[in-house]
């Protein structure tokens, strides 16, 4: 099997195809600390792409409550278990090691990916190229079952059950995990397709399923470790998130036909989402683009981390981990960069504070930013570390360098008129 370089794993890995990288790659950052699980993103996607017959169980965008929620149910626990069993069979361990370096910012993953685990532990005759499983229909239904409501409601104001809940209740922590297709650098869905019906676009790295070539074998559904390829019974072919490619290409009249963020990003009420197109080198690493907010968040500040990098698909979705969640859980989910990311996010430096202000001020894609320095407005010491706040201005620029907007670190404070205090 060809060897490809996966920078998130800090090493080469096996993949069924040779490496080829797009000029630009669709990528995004989600700040889990800010999500309120309003599901506006979910509905924005649903009402754009999956409102037709046969798509009833499809949620290309979903927001689930961790640790107990998942769409499809228990997807991550299931794939982690499969991977764990594969390691047990072959005597390895899913662990990280080595020193972080330029081409290996999180050190080196010493375990097996879903591709390697399949090659080593699955019978070659089975034609299964990726370790995975097919969720049952029941697992695709009720995407948010048991989430946020494990205590029964018995009517009346605050009428919670006096008996409590018989479900195991998470009493101290949970968080919301926002999920879309990661438009992976090494897509498992693409690797698994026996008909080569899945392709990664050279212009933006968006991964699409050719609806004409697909015959609905569901190998992609089985292979995608994130479970973001889905089968449609009415057309009998598979579908997946299309990255709102007409918007990304710049066919959105509302924004003047410039590259525009996807519907789920643009609608985010919690302002937790930032999407862009990042420049890639021929070897798959990111071009050092110091002016790109995504490059800054992922490669300089290192506050945003890939979801389950150990699966090996090199996902292009990055998450600022929730700062109140036990670290072992987060390290399993986002890799070894978690502690550093939370430290930097909790006591942000001057540039990070300004860049975080760029989230959701506009739906046109930000290609670069600049910061104009402002006055120091606050300083203190948090857990022994100095924190300074400057009212800097972050300026966002679009594809051709046109200014999109400017925003300041200090935000205007609006107090709602008492007369309208409770109106919506």
């Amino acid at each position: 099997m060809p060897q490809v370089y996966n920078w998130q794993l800090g090493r080469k890995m096996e993949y069924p195809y040779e490496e080829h990288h797009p000029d630009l790659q669709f990528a995004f950052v989600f700040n889990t600390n800010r999500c309120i699980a309003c599901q506006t993103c979910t509905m924005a996607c649903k009402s754009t792409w999956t409102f037709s017959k046969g798509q009833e169980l499809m949620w290309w965008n979903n927001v689930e409550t961790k640790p107990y929620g998942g769409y499809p149910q228990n997807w991550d626990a299931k794939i982690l278990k499969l991977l764990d069993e594969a390691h047990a069979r072959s005597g390895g361990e899913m662990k990280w090691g080595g020193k972080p370096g330029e081409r290996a910012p999180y050190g080196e993953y010493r375990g097996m990916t879903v591709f390697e685990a399949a090659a080593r532990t699955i019978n070659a005759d089975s034609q299964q190229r990726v370790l995975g499983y097919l969720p049952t229909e029941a697992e695709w239904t009720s995407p948010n079952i048991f989430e946020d409501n494990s205590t029964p409601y018995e009517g009346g104001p605050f009428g919670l059950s006096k008996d409590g809940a018989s479900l195991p209740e998470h009493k101290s922590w949970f968080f919301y995990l926002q999920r879309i297709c990661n438009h992976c650098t090494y897509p498992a869905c693409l690797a698994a397709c026996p008909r080569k019906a899945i392709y990664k676009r050279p212009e933006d790295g968006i991964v699409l399923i050719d609806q004409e070539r697909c015959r609905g074998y569901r190998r992609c559904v089985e292979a995608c470790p994130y479970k973001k390829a889905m089968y449609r019974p009415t057309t009998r072919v598979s579908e997946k998130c299309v990255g709102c490619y007409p918007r990304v290409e710049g066919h959105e009249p509302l924004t003047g036909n410039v590259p525009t963020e996807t519907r789920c990003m643009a609608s985010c009420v919690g302002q937790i989402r930032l999407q862009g197109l990042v420049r890639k080198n021929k070897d798959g690493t990111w071009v050092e683009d110091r002016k790109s907010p995504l490059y800054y968040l992922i490669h300089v500040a290192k506050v945003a981390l890939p979801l389950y990098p150990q699966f090996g698909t090199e996902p292009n979705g990055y998450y600022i981990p929730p700062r109140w969640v036990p670290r072992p859980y987060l390290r399993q989910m986002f890799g070894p960069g978690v502690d550093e990311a939370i430290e930097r996010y909790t006591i942000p430096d001057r540039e990070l504070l300004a860049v975080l202000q760029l989230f959701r001020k506009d739906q046109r894609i930000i290609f670069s930013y600049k910061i104009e320095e402002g006055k120091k407005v606050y300083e203190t010491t948090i857990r022994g570390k100095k924190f300074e706040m400057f009212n800097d201005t972050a300026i966002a620029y679009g594809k051709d360098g046109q200014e999109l907007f400017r925003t300041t670190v200090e935000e205007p404070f609006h107090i709602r008129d008492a007369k309208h205090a409770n109106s919506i």
Partner: protein
Amino acid sequence: MSKEEFEETDPMEFIGMGVPATAQADEDMVRAVVEEFLLLGFDRDRLLRLFRDPFYAGTHRVFVERGEEFVTGLLDRVLEEWAPAEVAEGDN
């Protein structure tokens, strides 16, 4: 609903399990809650109510299990860290 017996063969049955919270996790969570609500304008009394009131199951559990002193100690430390500070003229 709460009185129904757990049925392992029911595919829609909840099969998650509680992940234990460590002492450090309690501290991280209390800090996060206090900082977020402090920045929203809550004063000490209102912040403490988030822990005293059994309606807020997560924060109240910490209050019961770790004790009032643990919560108020951490609360006061965070309040002190985020106290309004004058910025010296020469700093700008």
